[in-house]
């Protein structure tokens, strides 16, 4: 597996952070993994690194329920800064919520590639990377 991709995990649940990071590392999927415990922290990081492509993530696994700024609020802000970003970023919404209200809402946001219900499985992480490679080849 080519360790070309920067992973970003935005989730306030540190146990979840621990398990996902551990899985990504075990599968050897990422070049770099960064983690934030709420949307605001992640947003601040992106704004600081607008043009630093090597710092910016290729993939964001975004939780919905977080303090300060939740997943949807983060998406609102992300859409605002997206035109300034020099890099294409793929966003997955990852939540323990099976609430259809949340799922429908996420599907309406075109910047969100898919909605994944926790716990995220190894196969799901692998296919995320496979898709990124395919898209890279198309470009």
């Amino acid at each position, binding site marked *: 597996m080519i360790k070309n991709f920067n992973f970003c995990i935005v989730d306030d*649940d540190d*146990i*979840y952070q*621990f*398990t996902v990071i*551990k*899985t990504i590392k075990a599968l050897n999927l990422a070049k770099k993994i960064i983690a934030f415990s*709420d949307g605001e922290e992640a947003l601040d990081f992106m704004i600081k690194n607008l043009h630093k492509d090597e710092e910016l993530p290729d993939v964001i696994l975004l939780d919905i*329920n977080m*303090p*300060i*700024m939740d997943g949807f*609020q983060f998406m609102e802000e992300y859409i605002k800064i997206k035109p300034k970003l020099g890099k294409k970023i793929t966003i997955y919404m990852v939540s*323990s*919520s*099976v*609430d259809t209200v*949340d799922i429908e809402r996420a599907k309406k946001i075109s910047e969100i590639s898919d909605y994944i219900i*926790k*716990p995220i499985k190894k196969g799901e992480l692998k296919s995320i990377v496979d898709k990124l490679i395919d898209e890279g080849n198309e470009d």
Partner: protein
Amino acid sequence: MSPNVNAEIIAVIATTNDDIISQFNSGAHTLLGYSPDEMVGSKKSDSFLLKEEIENFKRDLAARYQLKTIDFDPYKILAEHDANDAREWTILKKDGSTFIAHSTITPMKYENGKSNGYIRIIRDITDQKKVERDLLRKNEVLNHAEKITLMGHWQLDTITDNVKWSSNLYNIFEVHPDEVLTYDTYFSYVHPGDKETVSTSFEKSKQDKHFYDLLHHIKLDSGKIKIIQLLGEVITDEKGDVIEIIGTCQDVTQQRMAEIKFKGLLESAPDAMVIVNEKGKIQLINKQAEKLFGYSIGELLDQPVELLLPERYINAHANHRELYFNIPKTRKMGEGKELFGIDKHGREIPIQISLSPLKTEEGVLVSAAVRDITFQKRAEKRIIDAKGSLELLTDKLTIKNTQLADFAHITSHNLRAPVSNLNSLLEFYKDAETTLEKVQLFEKFESVIHHLTSTLNTLVEALKTKDETSKNIELLSFEEILSKTKEILSGQIIATNAKISSDFTAAPTIMYSKVYLESIFLNLVSNAIKYKAEDKTPEIFIKATVENGVQKLSFKDNGLGINLVRHGKKIFGLNKVFHRHPDAKGVGLFMTKVQVEAMGGKITVESEVNEGSIFTIKFNK
């Protein structure tokens, strides 16, 4: 004509056999204007008579005495027959004017029987003639009027049973004017169906010496049936005995037909109809109205219409009625208002009324179509009741639904997350190769299980709160609750130097659950201290108010505040935190809301970042 006003003036004019005037008295002078000197010995009677009247006079005499010619001296003829003549003459006066006179011609004779001229006596009867003419004319007018009004008049001499009819009465009864009338003529035409009523009424009229008006049918020889109305008067002599009955008789067939048609229409109306005159007196009602109000027409005739209204409307109605008669037009009564009538037994009936003016010869009448809407009202009430209970049910269901949704949300977010973590950890644990790794993972297990336990405990508590609604309600003093809160929080208060003030004067006590109220105070006051602004000393002000009979309690602080635009919706959600505070767990406000709502109240928040927050509790009534 003024000098002739005195009817006593009589002219006496004597003539000779040759018709030469021989005597001309002063009366003649006055009436004719000639002096005796002008007339006596020279003039003949033709000087003051009209030629054609003399001719007529002669023709009459010729007819009377069967003479073949009129070439004779009329005075001689009268003398020959020893007769006299009295008739009307037109007298030509000296000034050329004329007057009508009654004149008698009497031949004069000597004792030997020889003719000695004649005497003419003249009386002015102009006035009499005028009266006569007037009378004739009046009679004609009366006749005409009777024809137009289809009316006649009659006289019955009760002693001789002699009957007189006016000419139009003959027309009405289609009887030939020459027919001899008797007492029975009229009775023979009375319709068989009405005979008994009419005879009885006539007998009673004679007995009571008062004429009872009659309205009945007559059947004529042609087979035609008419309706006539008889009005009359009974005349008595000085002893009080009935001598005569006089009266009128009118053919009212057409009016009655119109009336019958009108009544038919009235009866066929689906609504109760009440017809009222300008004075508000009932003139006519139909069967439906009799049924609706329980009165018979006899009981309501000429009674004020307000009899059919409940007392509370009577004054206002009289005014409305007057206004209506000023500008009568078809309209609904009391549009938009609930109207009631009252029946004979005092029962109120919900009604709907339409008014319509009716112009008649008796003035403007108003017809009121009254519709009983008891049934509609009952149906309406049932619908309103049903709507009310549906709304109540909807409210209850909405609350239950919200609670269920809350619970589903909590299960989805707050329970699934730790469980999925446990699953992930379990997989790592299975794959763990070193003991160290397993120990580390076990620590993570502990942390998740601890979190899960606390979430479950909160949920159980919340569910318990929702179930235990009105238990353990007691009279509580806000002051006492606050001082207990201060005791519990004394550590934080001292550490932060927080200032807590209050004003409970508007409502110092409340009936509430002690446990909840203590919990509400503890959560809100401790939050205010916990989320204090870094550069400020916390200041908390608690105030009790009453608004529209509802008790309110507000907690105002000068702390960090909350971004309501961002977090407004979820501020009272479980495990929602808005500050990066180590102790923020998102349980306090959640439990506070659950407790307030369980007691039927509401909690709201106003907040400004870096300014502070105001939490307001609106207690249930």
